[in-house]
């Protein structure tokens, strides 16, 4: 019996004839209707076979429920009408922004479109910021290749872009004494995978991390693990791309494509029709939609959300690096590396994430249960962990394929598209490497030469709180605004906020400023500095205070003047 008939038999048994598999153009297609999203995802995982097919397309409909469509920007104009970039990059996440920047090393005209009001608004701004050593990756995976390469590039990339990066290492903790010899032996496995690792007794572990649970019997130390601010890196990539001549268009969504004879002729956006020579699909959870529009549909994205929380800096003493439990969940579906307790570059602790399948690609809601579960899970690693120290929490949605691997390739049916899709974890780690490769193959496709005037260096925004007295005095002498502290929790000066508002990637919202220079990231969460930041934005950009927004569209902070409605 062929794979297909065997699969259909299994699907029939489980879903009573409601799901059917076919092969079309080398891709495995699932169709039918099921009432439960979790079952749709399960059917996908049941059917997937990376070796036999180009990809799995899961078209099983969700019965009786409307999956929310992509949220679109309110804006509608013709700012991009008739634009003829060499390359159109769709998606301003870390992958898209890194690709745009690497493309600037060549003589290529780049237009980067992002449907949100800022870059890094989806998964790239909503993850744990870990630069992974590659613990759970296997040989032959695309993500393994880019993770290993990306990890090794981080020091250079972050130095060029002026982004704080710390290679602090990760401890994987084990609780069973009988596992000790197994763990010791497992070092050889990772060494064969070219991942530096070292066995550590509990005594040695506690010497490095004295506040971890003393019931931990042994640990593996992965020294190549690091941390970075994920939205900080994305913004830096975007700024460096724009500084080098890339055009960035925010609030810009791709609505349609004109495809003829296996080529994308034009791309319709809410800001006009664009005629690119090459399209790069880095649209995250919406990359499948882009693939469909490009008539190059050979994979499906099943969104998987994860919640992280940030703890007060006073709890940071608990973990100085990254401490993770070994994933106790043996089920194959448990697609999370188990998360951990992470000391962020900004000196907070981050705890999480969890992993929950969802049909809602843009639902960033948090809930009580996830927070409680995550705290309970990681309390085992560091018993002093307490929900009382939580200062904020957030949810992100991973863009997973059923192959659970990255797709970095030219189109299968359409010639002038490159997909950088299915980039879930460790996408942040992999981004620098994916970008270099995608830019190289794009340049080859376009026959573009090197851009000799490319400047890889981005000037970061000064962080006066981290300067020496002399540096800080110099800075304040040049501009006294650097001596006026606006955010007391994170010690952010007026000068830093002004700088954030006048850079090459536009920023005009309270959250935009917060993501760039951190006012409101501290324990008071903007209670004191929020109104002041809003005033600074209004003043610097010459807009009425009522028009200052929290984040994207319609998120106005204020609803008018006093007594206006009376």
């Amino acid at each position, binding site marked *: 019996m062929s794979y297909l008939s065997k699969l259909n038999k299994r699907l029939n048994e489980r879903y009573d004839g409601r799901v059917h598999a076919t092969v079309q153009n080398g891709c495995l297609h699932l169709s039918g209707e099921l009432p439960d999203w979790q079952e749709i995802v399960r059917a996908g995982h049941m059917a997937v076979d990376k070796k036999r097919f180009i990809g799995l397309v899961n078209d099983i409909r969700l019965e009786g429920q409307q999956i929310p469509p992509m949220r679109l920007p309110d804006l509608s104009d013709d700012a991009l009408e008739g634009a003829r970039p060499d390359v159109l990059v769709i998606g301003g996440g870390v992958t898209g922004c890194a690709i745009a920047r690497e493309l600037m090393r060549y003589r290529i005209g780049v237009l980067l479109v992002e449907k949100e009001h800022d870059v890094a608004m989806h998964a790239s701004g909503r993850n744990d910021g870990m630069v992974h050593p590659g613990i759970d990756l296997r040989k032959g995976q695309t993500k393994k290749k880019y993770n290993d390469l990306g990890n090794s590039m981080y020091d250079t990339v972050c130095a060029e872009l002026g982004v704080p990066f710390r290679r602090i290492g990760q401890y994987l903790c084990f609780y069973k004494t009988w596992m000790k010899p197994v763990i010791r032996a497992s070092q050889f496995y990772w060494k064969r995978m070219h991942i530096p690792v070292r066995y550590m007794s509990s005594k040695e572990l506690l010497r490095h991390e004295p506040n971890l649970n003393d019931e931990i019997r042994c640990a593996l130390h992965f020294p190549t693990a690091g941390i970075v601010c994920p939205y900080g890196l994305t913004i830096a990539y975007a700024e460096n791309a724009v500084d080098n001549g890339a055009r960035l268009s925010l609030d810009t969504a791709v609505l349609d494509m004109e495809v003829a004879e296996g080529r994308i002729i034009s791309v319709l956006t809410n800001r006009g029709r664009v005629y690119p020579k090459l399209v790069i699909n880095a649209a995250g959870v919406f990359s499948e939609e882009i693939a469909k529009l490009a008539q190059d549909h050979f994979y499906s994205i099943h969104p998987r959300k994860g919640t992280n929380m940030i703890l007060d800096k006073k709890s940071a003493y608990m973990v100085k690096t990254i401490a993770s439990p070994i994933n106790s969940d043996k089920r194959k579906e448990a697609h999370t590396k188990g998360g951990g307790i992470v000391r962020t570059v900004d000196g907070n602790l981050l705890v999480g994430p969890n992993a929950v399948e969802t049909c809602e690609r843009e639902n*960033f*809601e948090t809930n009580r249960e996830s927070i409680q579960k995550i705290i309970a899970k990681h309390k085992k690693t560091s018993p002093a962990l307490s929900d009382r120290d939580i200062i904020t929490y957030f949810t992100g949605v991973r863009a997973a394929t059923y192959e659970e691997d990255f797709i970095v390739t030219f189109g299968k049916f359409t010639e002038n598209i490159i997909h950088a899709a299915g980039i879930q974890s460790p996408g942040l780690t992999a981004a620098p490497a994916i970008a270099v490769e995608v830019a190289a193959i794009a340049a080859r496709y376009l026959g573009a030469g090197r851009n000799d005037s490319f400047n890889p260096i981005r000037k970061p925004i000064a962080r006066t709180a981290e300067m020496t007295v002399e540096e800080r*005095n110099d800075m*304040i002498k040049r501009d006294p605004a650097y*001596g006026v502290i606006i955010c007391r929790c994170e010690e952010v000066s007026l000068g830093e906020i002004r700088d954030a508002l006048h850079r090459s990637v536009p920023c005009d919202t309270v959250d935009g400023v917060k993501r760039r220079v951190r006012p409101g990231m501290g324990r008071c*969460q903007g*209670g004191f500095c929020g109104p002041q930041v809003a005033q600074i934005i209004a003043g610097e950009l010459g807009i009425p205070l009522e028009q200052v927004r929290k984040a994207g569209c319609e*998120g106005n902070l204020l609803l008018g*003047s006093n007594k206006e409605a009376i």
Partner: protein
Amino acid sequence: MIAASYDVVVIGGGPAGLAAALAAKKEGAGVLLIEREARLGGILKQCIHDGFGLVRFGEKLSGPEYAHRFIEPLLETDVDIATLTFVTGIEKQQGSYAITLVSREGINMTLAKSIVLACGCRERTSRQIGIHGRHCAGIFTAGAAQYYTNILGKLPARRCVILGSGDIGLIMARRLTLEGAEVIGVYEAKPTASGLMRNIYQCLEDFDIPLHTGKTVTRVFGDGRLEAVEISDVDDQMNPIAGTEETIQCDTLILSVGLIPANELAENLGIPLDPRTKGPVADQNCMTLQQGVFCCGNALHVNDLVDYVSESGETAGREAARFVPGERIFAELKADDSILYIVPQKLNLLDLSAPAVIYFRSASERGKTSLTVTAGSKQVYTKTFTVLRPPEMERIEIDFSGAGLKPGDSIEFSLAEDQ
């Protein structure tokens, strides 16, 4: 201009710091007052409602008026005032404290023999009370909403729900109503209101704004701006009860869910905090367990009346000016479960010349109640109250000079229904 050294450096130019600076000056000390904002007065600047100063001046003043009762005499003195100046670090040195300041002039260092921490408090946030859902615009702490309305003249709300019945929330319910917003109601998770009775009457009842107790906001909805909140009943453990959810359409959620002393500087100095007040542990002279570091006002514990903030500021300023390094011998002030907290937590037995001023809050609402203070088996003080409510702080004075206290003695405070 900031001098190289001072007898007393007061950090914070709100009501506590203003009173402390004046009191220290009165003792003849060389004083520096540091304020991070451009103007003195602290949060009083945005409190344009009246009711300030009833205890102290026998008058109903607005916040700015009350502040000026201190700012004007202060400006008559030679106290150095550094506004738009932020303390980035305090380091203990031999016999003094080195304070690092940042301002438009650059980084300054100054030495202080003693320090008064008068940094006030901050508001609990939506995340600290576990509000979930989308992270949209339109969720404000009451203090931030008050700043927008009273300082900037802008309306943060058209149709709002207020969560928490703390005083600023009640004040803002009235304020927003007067400015043309609709306040749907005030929701309080606890079984009773957290604010002063006078604010319940004057801000809610007089404006027909309903107060719902035993309910909290469990979820918020809205993509850009807030569109609705979900309200649930809570059980005695404050956990939401499933099945009781109701959704209320609104564009704004205002939070008045508690204040926390701002104790970053005390934490950095390693000064022990009282888990009940969340401010530093202090003696009757407002000195913390760190010699020469004093704390007062809402940084010490959250007060309901500014009059008491000023009083503790005066104590801290006066004692900071008089400070001479030396040993203190403590008896412990302890409260049982009938009392929410008590300040001070320590009594320096070497300084019993004046009666000790003691503040406490009852843990629950009570009718006629007796406070009994015992040391060993001896009753040293008793007082009867007709009514006690947790939101209303009580102030008593006790003369311990005749109590025969020994080092390490426990002085026990307890409330019991009056027979």
